[in-house]
């Protein structure tokens, strides 16, 4: 019984990353300096939000490729997803790139689910080079999940702000000295009966906890094995609940825990509980965390991306919010502990 626990014996490596972000993120994000490209225009000077969304992802992929001097034709698979209906920005990006493509959907957990799938393909020696990643664009997603952008509705303290950002990572066979993926855990869908779509952190926290304990148990690890355990986009409220759940389930401390959504806008109160969106975890994992791994400030990290699997339809039909979390372990150590 694997129970979602995966080990990659060949330890596929991350080679390069590309992170793009919008103008608000340039101004307000604490990670802005680390992004490879920021745009002056929310739509990347294109006519629609969805075209801008596509451009974000396309540029992130091209940046990741250019850093390793790879061309598109060398890439075997492109694995990505977003939050727009039928994931058209991702599919349109894939069309423009012309790389064999598998669309991935795990809401805001897509950054990690795509990396897990990429690692599986690389580990099975079905691919030499792969691109994984995810993206989100504030305007395109807000109008789909919530209200028209100019509609006035009072947002509470638990509300999160969908980021405009994309992250792409080039994954290949193991290379000494590169951050490498040693293992992962595919999460189960967890639904604790939360129904408030403006408090997604609280809905997602139990899923993150479930996946964390599965990962620790399945790989016989403790939280002290990691320099950091970073969750995707729980936001300040969800992160607080996640830490309380961790304490309750017997984890002695949470001092090496981080949350990308909480940190993204540096606790600016105008963003309420912080950032969310499938680009949020991708942008932070592939800029800040990746660079700290390269500099060996981190030797072993656990990335847990969380996603709320709701739609306006399910919410309006009165369903609660099912959530998922996927975990991937990235290390600078040459050999796996397992």
């Amino acid at each position, binding site marked *: 019984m694997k129970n979602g626990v995966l080990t990659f014996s060949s330890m596929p490596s991350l080679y390069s990353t590309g992170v793009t972000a919008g103008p608000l993120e340039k101004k307000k994000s604490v990670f802005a300096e680390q992004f490879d490209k920021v745009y002056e225009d929310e739509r990347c000077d294109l*006519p*629609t*939000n969805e075209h801008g969304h596509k451009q974000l992802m396309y540029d992130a992929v091209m940046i990741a490729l250019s850093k390793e001097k790879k061309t598109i034709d060398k890439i075997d698979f492109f694995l990505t997803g977003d939050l727009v209906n039928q994931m058209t920005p991702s599919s349109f990006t894939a069309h423009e790139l012309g790389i064999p493509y598998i669309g991935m959907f795990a809401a805001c957990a897509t950054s990690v689910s795509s990396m897990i799938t990429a690692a599986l393909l690389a580990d099975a020696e079905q691919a030499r080079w792969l691109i994984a990643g995810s993206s989100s664009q504030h305007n395109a997603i807000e*109008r789909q999940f919530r*209200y*028209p*952008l*100019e*509609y*006035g*509705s*009072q*947002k*509470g*303290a*638990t509300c999160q702000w969908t980021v405009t950002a994309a992250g792409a990572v080039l994954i290949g066979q193991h290379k000494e000295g590169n951050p490498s993926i040693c293992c992962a855990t595919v999460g189960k869908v967890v639904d*604790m*009966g*939360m129904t408030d779509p403006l*408090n997604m952190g*609280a809905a997602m926290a*139990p899923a993150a906890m479930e996946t964390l304990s599965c990962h620790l148990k399945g790989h016989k690890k403790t939280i002290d094995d990691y320099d950091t355990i970073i969750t995707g986009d729980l936001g300040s*409220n969800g992160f*607080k*609940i996640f830490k*309380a*759940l961790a304490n*309750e389930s017997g984890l002695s401390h949470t001092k090496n825990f981080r949350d990308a959504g909480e940190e993204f806008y540096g606790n600016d109160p105008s963003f309420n509980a912080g950032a969310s969106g499938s680009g949020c975890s991708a942008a932070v994992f592939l800029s800040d965390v990746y660079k700290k791994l390269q500099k060996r400030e981190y030797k072993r990290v656990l990335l847990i991306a969380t996603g709320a699997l709701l739609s306006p339809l399910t919410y309006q039909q009165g369903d609660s919010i099912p959530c998922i979390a996927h975990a991937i372990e990235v290390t600078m150590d040459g050999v796996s502990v397992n």
Partner: protein
Amino acid sequence: MEQEKYAHLEKELSPKTPILKNVIKAFLVGGLICLIGQFIALFYITYFDFTERTASNPTVATMIFISMLLTGFGLYKKISQFGGAGASVPITGFGNAVVSSAIEHKSEGYVLGVGGNMFKLAGSVILFGVFSAFIVALIKTILVKFGVVSW
């Protein structure tokens, strides 16, 4: 952990809605918008041929026009974030719901986008307004016919 226990924990940890603060802000913003409406009504009474009773129609139209400008320049959502119901209950909030939907769906064209979505938020207000008016008027008319109440 069972759902009930988690719901309890979540309620304990999630920040509480600052109801008193929100109510005060709603009162101030809502009151101010109505006061502005009162001044506009005064304008129509003084300079045009309107009475106190008939001035409400041009006043409402003017308020919706102002709401369109504020929505278009991205200010109405800021007023709403501060004022909550104080910004959405006045007719300007109705205008904001219509105009914001119209602007948002411009990218799908004027027929399918703007036309098809203009009332996606405000439509329910019209529906329930009309239907409740129908029921109330129907009941009252029948009651008057049977001599229970008078006009």
